[in-house]
């Protein structure tokens, strides 16, 4: 099956993404209101108009961006409904399920009112409105998990499994880790096929796992986390790093050491940054590079086989990046951050 129709639509949508020129134009706008006016000339117009009625200014823009993203994902899912490639898109979109579920669990733990939790959900995933609102109605973490089991949502199993450990240690990381681990295991499991399409997607996911592990290790090493404790954060199935290698890296003890050990991997670009900027860099500076690498890698898929679902995946990443860039512009504009600093946070693809 090829995705002629879907890909043609996606390409149409891709061609409406803002190019670098229009982004720099937006960067140079003097204030939020002129930014809004400028955004009125983009495909965000409709979402913006609607969001600004309820929330003025910055939060309106952010709401509009979020709505637009959700709408884009829903639209593409609509095209692919019933197709085999639907599940590849679900790989991408279900990360918002994880976000939503984590948010609900976190919120339920400290008894945040449901209304407040709801404001922080992004309905871009596979969970529908009905499921989310039922989850929000549950009084505590246990009943959230039970409800997932009742509705036969697959996340119930990993959560149930680690729940006793959670009750014992009262450490939310245990639940969250179980979710993340489950997500990546399932995703990797989904793309074990031999077709080029699955291979490409598998590579993408494996790269993502590598990058996540790398980021986690950098953060843990910096905070001197006990390597034996840190191991539970590591994800299996990466492209370059297996668990053994990751453990070794975790024991290196210093950020510089970890980065030096990247020699010979595709991620050695971190070393270039370290050698020019020195050892005292924030982890987020490295993460920026890692994010950029991931986004570039993913968006490159857009230019792959024109009839493959990878085009859609590439587009979704590009769209995600654009929304991130716009959010950066809006936030920074609001806080009067200089264009140069703004661009340092942005990612161009």
């Amino acid at each position, binding site marked *: 099956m090829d995705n002629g129709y879907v890909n043609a639509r996606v390409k149409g949508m891709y061609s409406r993404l803002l190019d670098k020129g229009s982004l720099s134009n937006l960067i140079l706008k003097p204030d939020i209101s002129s930014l809004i006016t400028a955004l009125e000339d983009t495909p965000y117009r409709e979402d913006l108009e609607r969001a600004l009625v309820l929330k003025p200014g910055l939060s309106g823009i952010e709401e509009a961006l979020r709505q637009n993203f959700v709408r884009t994902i829903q639209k593409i899912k609509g095209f692919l409904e019933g197709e085999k490639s639907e599940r590849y898109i679900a790989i991408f979109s279900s990360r918002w399920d994880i976000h939503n579920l984590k948010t609900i669990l976190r919120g339920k733990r*400290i008894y945040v009112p449901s209304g407040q939790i709801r404001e922080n959900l992004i309905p871009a995933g596979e969970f529908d409105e009905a499921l989310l609102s039922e989850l929000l109605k549950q009084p505590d973490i246990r009943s959230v998990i039970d409800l997932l089991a009742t509705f036969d949502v697959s996340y119930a199993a990993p959560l149930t499994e680690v729940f006793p450990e959670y009750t014992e240690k009262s450490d939310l990381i245990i639940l969250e880790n179980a979710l993340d681990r489950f997500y990546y295991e399932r995703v990797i499991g989904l793309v074990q096929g031999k077709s080029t399409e699955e291979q490409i997607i598998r590579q993408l996911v494996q790269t993502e796992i590598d990058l996540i592990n790398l980021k986690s290790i950098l953060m843990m090493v910096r905070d001197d986390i006990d390597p034996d404790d840190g191991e539970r954060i590591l994800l299996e199935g990466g492209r370059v790093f297996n668990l053994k290698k990751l453990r070794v890296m975790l024991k290196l003890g210093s950020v510089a050491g970890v980065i030096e050990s990247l020699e010979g991997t595709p991620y050695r670009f971190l070393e270039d940054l370290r050698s020019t900027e020195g050892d005292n860099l924030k982890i987020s500076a490295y*993460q920026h590079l890692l994010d950029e690498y991931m986004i570039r890698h993913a968006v490159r898929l857009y230019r792959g086989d024109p009839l493959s679902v990878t085009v859609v995946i590439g587009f979704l990443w590009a769209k995600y990046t654009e929304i991130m860039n716009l959010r950066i512009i809006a936030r920074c504009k609001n806080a009067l951050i200089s264009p140069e600093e703004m661009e340092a946070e942005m990612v161009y693809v």
Partner: protein
Amino acid sequence: MEQVHPTRMELMKKRSQILLAEQGRDLLKEKMEALIQEFFKIMVNFSESREGLEQLAIEADLALLVAEAVDDPVAVKSASYATKRQIMVDIAGKNIMGVPVPVIQKKSVALNVMERGYGLIGTSSRINEAAEKFEAEMDMIIRLAETETTLRRLGNEIQMNRRRVNALDQIIIPELKEQAKYIRFSIEEREREDLFRLKKVKKLIERKKKKKLMASVS
């Protein structure tokens, strides 16, 4: 002053009181100086920390801004739900020149990445760094709370001391001295009166004696 009995006994008592007051005053003055010294020593630190706090606050806000800009405010909010919402501090006390000041036992609320409650995998290091910056700000606030209370207590003590010294210096000591002076004057006056009386009596006696002599002679 009326109650004061202008007796020699009283005078001696006053004299020793004056001495005591003066000694006390000097002692208080010394203590005050020491307190002031202590105060300024902490004060220098305090104003530096104050600036540091402002700096930290700016940095923390910036880190939060970056996290919200790049990762979506929704993600930041979500991560914030994972944190424990309270900070426990134990407060003990110590003495600076007899002034009780608080000492906060655990000065640092800074956590490492595994202690913040949210999973590392789905949360970006930007959010983490924002949390870190705010924890540092919190630390600073706690430390400042300690020093600020100390300073306030010391300040109060210095005020009180100064008032005491002033009271001694300007009211009690002069009053005592006045009293002593009065007693002395009174005693001297009395002595002079006595002398005069004696002389008068002596004259009378002599006159009587002379009359008697005159009478006998004549």
